[in-house]
């Protein structure tokens, strides 16, 4: 029984690796354009981080409007002029406002977003801890069932008994 479990476990591992590895490993590089110019991919890498100023919540790299096509051309021109990614993003923010940034910066009013998030999660954690503390029995030591030396394949009799009790309770309810 132990042997068959090991074989089953090993097979599960192999299957998982076979399933996960090929997909995540098929990442060969894309060859550069023949003329050495700025590629669509380089433009899209930056456009992806910007939102269309006109269409709500549409990233610039997939927006089909003419205005977005013009803005992507602007990005291409700036890349050809060797402007950096940060400079290009700053240019669009200056012209259209911080709403064009897909990820809000931790500055200005958007500090409030990060601040509120941290405060909210902290408050929730404090509430959770408080609830747990007030709910725990105020006893020095509770009676604990003696630790049985359990091995997985021995099928802990207490586990079996608990399972049966739950089945019966379900049937009765």
């Amino acid at each position, binding site marked *: 029984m132990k042997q068959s*479990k090991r074989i089953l*476990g090993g097979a599960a*591992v192999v299957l*998982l*690796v076979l*399933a*996960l*590895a*090929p*997909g*995540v*490993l*098929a*990442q*060969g590089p*894309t060859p550069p*354009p023949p003329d050495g110019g700025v590629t*669509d991919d380089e433009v*899209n890498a930056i456009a992806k981080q910007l939102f269309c100023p006109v269409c*709500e*919540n549409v*990233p610039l790299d*997939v927006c*089909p*409007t003419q205005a*977005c*096509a013009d803005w992507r051309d602007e990005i291409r021109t700036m890349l050809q002029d060797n402007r950096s990614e940060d400079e290009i993003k700053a240019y669009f923010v200056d012209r259209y*406002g*911080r*709403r*064009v*940034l*897909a*990820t*809000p910066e931790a500055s200005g*009013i*958007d500090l409030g977003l990060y601040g509120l998030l941290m405060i*909210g*999660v902290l408050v*929730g*954690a404090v509430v*959770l801890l408080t*609830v*747990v503390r*007030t*709910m*725990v*029995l105020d006893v020095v030591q*509770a009676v*604990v069932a003696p*630790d049985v030396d*359990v091995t*997985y394949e021995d*099928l*802990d009799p207490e586990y*079996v008994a608990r399972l*049966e009790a739950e*089945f019966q309770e*379900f*049937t009765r309810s």
Partner: protein
Amino acid sequence: MNAELGVFLLLFALLAAIYALVAALVGGRKQNEALVESARNALLITWPLLTLASLLLISLLVRGDFNTEFVWSVTDRAMPTYLKVTALWGGQAGSLVFWSWLMSTFAAGAMLRNWRREHDLMAYAIAAMAATLGFFLLLVTFWENPFARFWQTPQGEIMTALLGASDFLGRIATWRLDFAERLPGMLGVIVKGIIPLSAPGGSFTLIPDDGQGLNPLLRHPGMIIHPPMLYLGFVGFTVPYAFAVAALIKGEVSSSWIRATRRWTLVAWLFLGLGLILGGWWAYDVLGWGGYWAWDPVENAAFMPWLTGTAFLHSVMIQEKRGMLKRWNMVLIILTYLLVVLGTFATRSGIVSSVHSFAQSAIGPLFFLFIAAALVVSVALLVKRWDTLASENQLDSLLSRETAFLLNNFLFVAIAFTVGLGTYWPVFTELAADYFRGVERSSVGPEWYNATTGPMFAALILLMGIAPLVAWKRASWKRLGSSMLYPLIATVVTLALLYLLGVRNIGALVGFGLAILTALITLFEYHRAALARTRAHGENYLAAFWSMFGRNRRRYGGYMIHLGVVIIAIGVISSNVFQAETQRSVSAGQAITLGDYILEYKTLERFVATDGRFVTRAQAVVYHNGREVARITPRIDNYPSGQPMSIPGKYTSWLGDDFYVLLVTWEQLDLSSASFKIYYNPLVNWIWGGGFIFIVGTLIAAWPDFSEERVPVRSARRAIPAAGD
């Protein structure tokens, strides 16, 4: 005449709902059984009225009665019949009627099912359901009536009105508009937004030749069933809320209201989850950006009630089992209901697109008022019964299933809070920009959501694996460790192998590790339980496996749901972290390489489809590791009334990876040059597969037991310990 009949059907349904609300409240307060029964009947009557109204609207859609504004706005002559039927939920007014019909259906079912079992709660449950239905009927009767028709006035103005032309009623409509101009702010918007009862005298009906047609984005199978599924989920959650409110009003805060509504909750949760998955599938297939979830505000508005609903579904188990977390469960169901209405409000009012669009339509302010009223009433009731909701027991140990569920609740609510914060932050900053100089509207995109919710989702996945191993009241670390030992070893070995094979992204490895661990623990739990039964009862393994599901559907259906979620998680992690993309312009005969794949552009064809679409279609061949694996046809559909849609061509590998190809709509497109955008999405189809398992698991967990009629047993309250909640 037909459309006018529809106006009266909606009006009568509204009156019946209002009567049901008032009669239920008065009958409940005065313990007047006849009045409560009358309220029930009034709420029941809304169902045939709304069914007739819906069928009438569908017949107008199918017949193409373009005199009716709603029909004109969502259909055209070229649309096939099945799309004309589904156009019922293709526009605001029709979808609100559909919402109302679903609400009356659920209300009827809940009342009939629980009339005897939970009779004490029925009066106020009816009141709560009638209030919700009444609000939506108010909207569709006066502000978003799908039966409003086109008229042309003697002055040549085109307008809509509910009934015929009349001097008297027309003058009242004019007076109302003048009056609305004098009212302040939101009130003026609300009064102005009421659809006129009648056009001015001398007006004549206007019948356009053709309609605008359905938005091309909605002409996809996923979009056809996605809205009904979402609405079923939204509406379904009003039932447990109604019973919770009734329990609070009556002060009967035992678990009977939970037992009465458990299946309703599970079914609502299933449909909401299914709606979200279908929405993702639709986005992947139609929106042309290679993804399935963009953390769009409208998506988030539906996701948040699902999150709190999930927390509620888990948390009520503690109340049923140990009489604990009663306050918490009330908060969760109230929050879920409010998020449902808020979600409907957010998508209908346009507020998440722009706070200014909120102020231009009457829908926004009306929803806002309803949500505010529901919040005030719910909180007031909760405060009133706060002491009564004290726990009957306490936590015996920090390592217990109760603690695990508490942590589970915290994580789900934390994620919902985070998503809500990101969704409404742009609205807040837009408002602030109106009042404070130097402040600009902000956007919150997918990267922010992924970074903030990712760790919380990871913790949830781990909890999904550990919590079922932990016993109620008290568990031991040793027993927990021994239950996890083999799955942990298998997980570590798998991760080590993946690392050695070149998977180096730490975030992905952690995510995979947690998902694999949880999946293996869940599978081993199935195996252990089946093995326990074979030893205890002498059944063979398969028979034991089957009877295990039959004897405890909640638990083992729940495990299957967890498995489905884990598989979805693996698909999400892979397709997000390891997605590759490229965009190139090539001529016919040239190829584009992405990883191990090559796409060879063959030819382009243009034609007009039978439904009037102008189609540009590319023929291309896909090679993987040098071998031809597929011929695909990505295309662009141009509808006369909408912007072009890029429909992908895909090759799906046996493992569930997608090689996904789009024609770029805004670039030159002919044989000399066509621009392709290609995505490689590893394991993306595990998301849809995991979704299927999730649904099967939910159906198993929710399956009713027909073998005996259950009579709720009101358990005697156990002695309440001195320490409070």
